[in-house]
């Protein structure tokens, strides 16, 4: 019996069955505490149509899918390398083309044009609102967190705090909080953009300076702890933040500079263009940073902090810098949300939100700007699509079941992300191949004591 278990294809079959059963549960009906087995029973026994041919129960359908998947997987693992080699050879010419500079710039330009024209193409009210609230905001947050996690390699689980600071600063500056604005002079939300970004960067420095000396997992927990503390305070300091009631109504932004006059109203499209402008700005700045001395210093610190110190790099300084710079786009995203949706509630700034952004960054590819933009757009589009309408037993509260599973799957199969940054991919491959390097930070320098 043990021998049977050891056979690879048997193991693979069992794993496939396990995975499929889990997917069945994930996509099945819910239960409740009075009917705890309802979800389980329904997931397997509910009637389903077998690809439109006949009616059967869900488990039959899924068993079929499992067997097919097992077959394909076995085939791929055995015959795969040949197929992959042929495909690779076929892809050589296209790759040569995509690597060329002018082609890349052309592609970027085309994307920009598409982005600008998007509101004309997609005119439904739902999607236009989604483009701003969901996609644009999340893209901003993702590229900012990418600086912290991707460039500098710091796991920040409290990133939502910067978003919150941006939003609350907007409320404060425009007089929508019990705490009166500076000099009792309420300003246009447009002015809160620079103020929020400045405050958020200061917050990044203040938070980072004491905590960024810690190593990876401890840093994650500390940032998580800080995030929770901030949330509790935001929820309870009625005198400053108006507590759980949220802010008072925040006015919409408007510009009045000489001949230039524009008022943003309730329609989402103008906010989309405002967001797009800043997204492009942040993309340019972050990209320049990535390929500068600072970006290389971040890479050095990530690769080998001790070696980086030996050439004069001050790890703390660069880490704090990453924190502050990454926070900037979150700050602007906060301004965007606050001024568009008119009021903000502390309940929206949760740890879960930080995890959501983390998923976007991981899926897209840590350290890869193009990757995280893609990841953000992809996941948020899918999320919005699923939230809008009935899709096969999916409930909005199920979202994190999928995101959580996605994180695990990504780590096992493609930790470098969808569009990996070349360096990161190499780092991961090296870590996997070179076991001894993994212990370098544990060992003291050399073996003399």
């Amino acid at each position, binding site marked *: 019996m043990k021998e049977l278990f050891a056979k690879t294809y048997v193991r693979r079959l069992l794993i496939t069955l396990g995975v499929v059963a889990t997917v069945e549960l994930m996509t099945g009906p819910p*239960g409740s505490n*009075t009917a705890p087995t309802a979800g389980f029973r329904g997931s397997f026994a509910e009637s389903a149509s077998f690809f439109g041919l006949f009616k059967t129960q869900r488990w039959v359908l899924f068993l079929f899918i499992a067997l097919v998947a097992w077959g394909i997987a076995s085939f791929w693992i055995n015959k795969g390398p040949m197929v992959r080699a042929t495909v690779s050879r076929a892809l050589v010419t296209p790759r040569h083309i995509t690597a060329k500079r002018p082609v890349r710039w052309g592609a970027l330009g085309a994307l920009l044009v598409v982005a600008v024209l998007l509101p004309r193409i997609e005119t439904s009210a739902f999607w236009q609102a989604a483009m701003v609230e969901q996609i644009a905001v999340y893209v901003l947050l993702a590229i900012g967190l990418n600086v912290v996690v991707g460039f500098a390699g710091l796991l920040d689980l409290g990133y939502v705090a910067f978003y919150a600071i941006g939003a609350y600063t907007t409320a404060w500056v425009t007089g929508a909080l019990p705490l009166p604005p500076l000099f009792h002079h309420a300003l246009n939300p447009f002015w809160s953009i620079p103020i929020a970004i400045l405050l958020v960067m200061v917050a990044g420095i203040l938070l980072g300076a004491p*905590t960024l000396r810690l190593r990876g997992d401890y840093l994650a927990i500390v940032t998580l702890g800080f995030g929770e503390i901030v949330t509790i305070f935001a929820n309870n300091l009625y005198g400053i933040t108006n507590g759980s009631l949220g802010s008072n109504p925040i006015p919409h932004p408007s510009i009045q500079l000489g001949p230039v006059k524009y008022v943003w109203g309730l329609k989402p499209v103008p906010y989309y263009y405002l967001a797009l402008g800043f997204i492009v700005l942040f993309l340019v700045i972050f990209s320049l940073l990535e390929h500068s001395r600072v970006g290389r210093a971040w890479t050095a610190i990530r690769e080998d902090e001790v070696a980086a110190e030996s050439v004069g790099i001050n790890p703390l300084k660069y880490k704090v810098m990453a924190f502050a710079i990454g926070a900037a786009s979150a700050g602007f995203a906060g301004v965007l949300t606050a001024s568009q949706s008119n009021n903000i509630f502390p309940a929206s700034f949760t740890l879960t939100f930080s995890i959501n952004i983390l998923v976007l960054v991981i899926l897209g590819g840590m350290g890869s700007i193009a990757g995280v933009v893609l990841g953000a757009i992809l996941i948020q589009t899918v999320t919005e699509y699923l939230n809008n309408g009935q899709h096969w037993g999916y409930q909005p509260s199920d979202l994190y079941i999928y995101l959580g599973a996605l994180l695990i799957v*990504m*780590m096992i199969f493609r930790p470098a992300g969808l569009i990996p940054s070349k360096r990161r991919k190499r780092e991961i491959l090296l870590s*996997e191949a070179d076991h001894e390097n*993994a212990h370098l930070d544990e060992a003291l320098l050399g073996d003399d004591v």
Partner: protein
Amino acid sequence: MGAFGHYVAAHFDTLKLEFWALFVGGVANGLLYGMIAVGYTLVYGVLRLINFAHSEIFMSGGFAGYFVMKALVGTSVPTGAASVGLIILGIVAGGVVGSVMAFVLERVAYRPLRKRNAPKLAYLISAIGASYFLFNMAGKEFGHLAVSTPQPYINHAVFHIFGAPVLMYYVIILIAGVVMFVALDRLVAKTRLGRGIRAVAQDVETASLMGVNIDRTIAITFIVGGALGGAAGFLFAMGTGVVYTMGFVPALKAFTAAVLGGIGNLRGAMIGGLILGVFESLCVVFVQAAYIDVVAFGILVLVLLVRPTGILGERLGRSA
């Protein structure tokens, strides 16, 4: 600062009055934190990994206990032998489900990474993913409402300490906690299995050269930690009920306890739990109810910044 002194002084009288009641409650909480903390510390010892999903192990034990109690405890509350039997059954149910969940978690979320020598960050991210998957799944299958657990005992005051009543609930926790801690301490210090765990915690390569089955030892570490975490879940459920998000705050506090005592140090986890439980309980006098969690989170941040090795220092391998 006169106002501050005044504030403290005024509350000190309340503290003196309520001290023993708060102390007893704090010890009970502390034992629960310790039980959960043990799971963190054991896994950290052998894998150098913070098992972010341990909170869901705790939760699964809570739900297991809840369903068992719901099924077996009718409208009339049993007493005597039946009561004791049910309590033990609940603890066992919680512990078993916790161990199974922990075992599956290790197999699915961590082992594949270990086999590929994944970088440290990958484990943490996978752990976060597992945590979110599990508690949202629980929410889907068992509903999002918070419910209270039928108690298989009458929660009367069993005896008094200096005038403070010690409820049945606390007595149960005390007995269960002490038994589990002593058993675990013996396990790690005296048995071959325990030596294996300590060996892996100290030096994986040497341990495997000495013939320790690394995979099995790691699996058993998770199982043991999961058993205590799950049992703690049941005990917690009896007092506070269950809800799919119940894992987050207690587990974070338990992690604080583990770090406070010295992560990787088994006795440290137990002691850290007690210290945190009692301190938090006494702070109730000084701090508004809404902010009481800030005390624990604040201690967490402070300890990590100031003395990350904790009170008893870091290593499980050295002297437990």
